[in-house]
């Protein structure tokens, strides 16, 4: 177990390092922050001065080393745009992002999982078909199309809800819906197939043979088993809590991390991008790790390697 954790942690650290390195190389080679931040119309000498000041003239490997040794000292750098600490910029955005993604996650779970379970329990019924077609449709509409249509209906036509911005909880309703619907659809499909798989297992029959009423069989016996595959998807959703709402944030002018990432990438504001990537990669990697540990919790068979080779 310890060994397992150790390997996982090593892998996680390497993954994060790989992400940061990759982003560094790609971003530095594909755009000059000076030209972008100073704007192309700035005097060439101003651009040269900017480059010099930020060390953008140095060979890329030197910049890379400098960047990494700074990280080693806990120094995550400053935004090239306004000179403020990059991490501060990112942290300022996190509450807004979470205010969007957490309710959306709740929505995904709250709609997707029950819908999936329902469809599985009533397999091949009319409702099953309806739920599944709705789910697939919900998943296939690009989120910005959905967002724009929601705004047209609920803001412009009906005037019920604001169309963008982040002033009150009412502002969050439409973006949360937009984000939630697609995810709920994915989750519903996943839950359904996980549930169907479990319902075919013989321990479900055993439970019935004991005289356990069907509703309790479903709750007590099927659900805990169906949770295992579902957790994977949920883990992925949790992993993308931070930067998973880029498009929706843009459509709803929601000042979240996703938008910051887009802007920072466009500006090649490296320190900011890297801070976000660090957070994103760490969230994703820890979500993965938690999922792995949860597997063990949900399914005791996975707790030990005991059965690995036995047959």
């Amino acid at each position, binding site marked *: 177990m310890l060994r397992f954790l150790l390997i996982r942690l090593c892998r996680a650290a390497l993954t994060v390092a790989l992400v940061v390195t990759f982003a560094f190389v790609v971003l530095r080679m*594909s*755009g*000059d922050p000076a*030209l*972008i*931040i*100073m*704007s*192309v*119309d*700035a*005097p*060439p*000498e*101003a*651009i*040269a*001065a*900017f480059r*010099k*000041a930020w060390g953008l003239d140095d060979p890329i490997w030197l910049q890379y080393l400098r960047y990494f040794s700074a990280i080693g000292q806990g120094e995550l750098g*400053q*935004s090239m*745009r*306004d*000179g*403020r600490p990059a991490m501060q*910029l990112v942290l*300022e955005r996190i509450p807004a992002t979470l205010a969007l993604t957490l309710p959306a996650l709740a929505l995904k779970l709250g709609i997707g999982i029950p819908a999936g379970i329902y469809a599985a329990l009533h397999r091949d019924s009319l409702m099953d078909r309806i739920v599944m077609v709705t789910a697939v449709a919900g998943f296939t509409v690009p989120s910005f199309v959905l967002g*724009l249509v929601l*705004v*047209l209906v609920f*803001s*412009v036509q009906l*005037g019920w809800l*604001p*169309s*963008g*911005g*982040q002033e009150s909880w009412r502002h969050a309703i439409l973006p949360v819906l937009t984000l939630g619907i697609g995810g709920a659809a994915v989750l519903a499909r996943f839950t359904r197939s996980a549930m169907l798989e479990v319902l075919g297992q013989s321990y479900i029959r055993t439970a019935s043979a004991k005289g356990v009423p069907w509703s309790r069989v479903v709750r007590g016996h099927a659900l805990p088993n169906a949770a295992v595959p579902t957790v994977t998807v949920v883990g992925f959703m949790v992993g993308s809590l931070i930067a998973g709402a880029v498009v929706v944030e*843009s*459509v*709803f*002018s929601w*000042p979240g991390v996703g*938008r*910051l990432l887009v*802007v920072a990438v*466009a*500006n*090649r504001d490296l320190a900011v991008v890297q801070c976000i990537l660090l957070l994103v990669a760490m969230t994703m990697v820890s979500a993965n790790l938690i999922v792995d540990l949860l597997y063990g919790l949900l399914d005791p068979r996975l707790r030990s390697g005991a059965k690995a080779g036995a047959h």
Partner: protein
Amino acid sequence: QADNRPSITIAVQKIANSNLLDVLREQSNVGERVFFSSLWEGLIGRNWTGNLESVPGLATEWKRIDDKTVELKLRQGVKFHNGDELTADDVAFTFGKERMFGDTQPAAGKTISVDFVVGGGRASKELPAEVPAVARRSWPALLGIQIIDKYTVRFVNGTPDVTMEGRISRYGSEIMNRRAFEEAKTYSDWAMKPVTTGPYRVAEYRPDVSLLLEAHDEYWGGRPPLKSIRFVEVPETASRINGLLSGQYQFACDIPPDQISQIEKNAAFEVQGGTILNHRLTVFDKNHTQLQNPLVRRAMTHAIDRQAIVDSLWAGRTVVPKGLQWPYYGDMFVSDWSVPAFDLKLAKDLVKQSGYKGDPIPYRLLNNYYTNQTATAQILAEMWKEAGLNVEIQVKENWQQILERTPTRAVRDWSNSAPFNDPVSSMVSQHGPNGQQQQAGEWTNAELNQLSVELETSTDRARRKAAFRRMLEIAEREDPAYTVLHQNATFTAKPKALAWKASPAFAMDFRAENWGGRS
């Protein structure tokens, strides 16, 4: 006493590129919108509601002492946002070393070179290195400010310069409060909340999100009509329009021309705005194999039906200008000049003469960095195709990729402005020897370079005009460096009920003269 002045919200595509509200750092159109005339004011102002002609600003009058010196009388009783009175000291500080020029030295007699060295750390009050560089480009030879008395200052130049008044009125020469700058802990602290004399002051700035300006009630021009102005960043066009229609925003800026009729379908709304001091160009790289021959470039300039683009994509709301110049140049304006005429036959002939074989000519552009950019590019490509030119669009992600010096650089998009009313501010500054086009190694022309120096240093107005005319001939006809497509325009949508008039610029004027509230 209850303050029942209205507060308004303005949806813009971008608040500021640099996340800073310093005029020397944020050198962009979008910056102009939030700065002028709400926040920053210069000594010589512009008539934002008129035709941008010079008008008294923080200076009430000015006069030439000699070729190198201008004297200005400061307006009295002007209060900064922090309550300080504007004095000559603030003006001198604004144009001083600490704030503007850093270690740079004024040049005398030559355009400034690119290779000077500046130091600069980040977290200190020390100026970011690019600020002095920008300032020196605006004021290449300014020796300094002479304080004559509390309300009188003199600008002293190292070289004779007929454009000094223009430079005083230009973007970047606005006045700031000395005490506030000195008291701020870091440069960026100051630059996110600069203390100036404008009718509105910064209440809260959330970079990339919103900027809240509130009324500066001691404003010299009278109590501002609005309690607060909130700029919110709404990158999506549709979202800006939707927010306007649903009443969330009072103004929606950066409206693409195609949306105008849609918005105005609703009788309660209107779209204002029009041309600005900015021309859209297509720029040539004369080193590209296919473009070495000026005939090919000339063919390209004649193959474009500019008026059709203006009429369709711009709904006729902009114009095809007379080359890279603006009427506000006054007597420097070459009024009988025009862009190359649309003549498909001529274009085809030129192509034939040039011996061009149909090899691809890459055309680099950004994805709608300029209004209608992608649409225009696709039309241009088709128009060129009709003339027998095989132009291939290559969408790039940023300017480095556009400017990257490779054998595939041939045609690209650009725009040019004129920060003040003289061709030096456009032709020389953009296409002269130190201009971006030559610095990027796309194009050069010995004669034009000579003329650049003349235009910059000469005080003989007739000779200057002749030089400028010749420069236009070279750069737009003989050895095309670029070709002007159309003037740029910006459009702002608002409820008809709000009595407010748009400027022929990005700047939005919310002073009392331009606000009639609900009519």
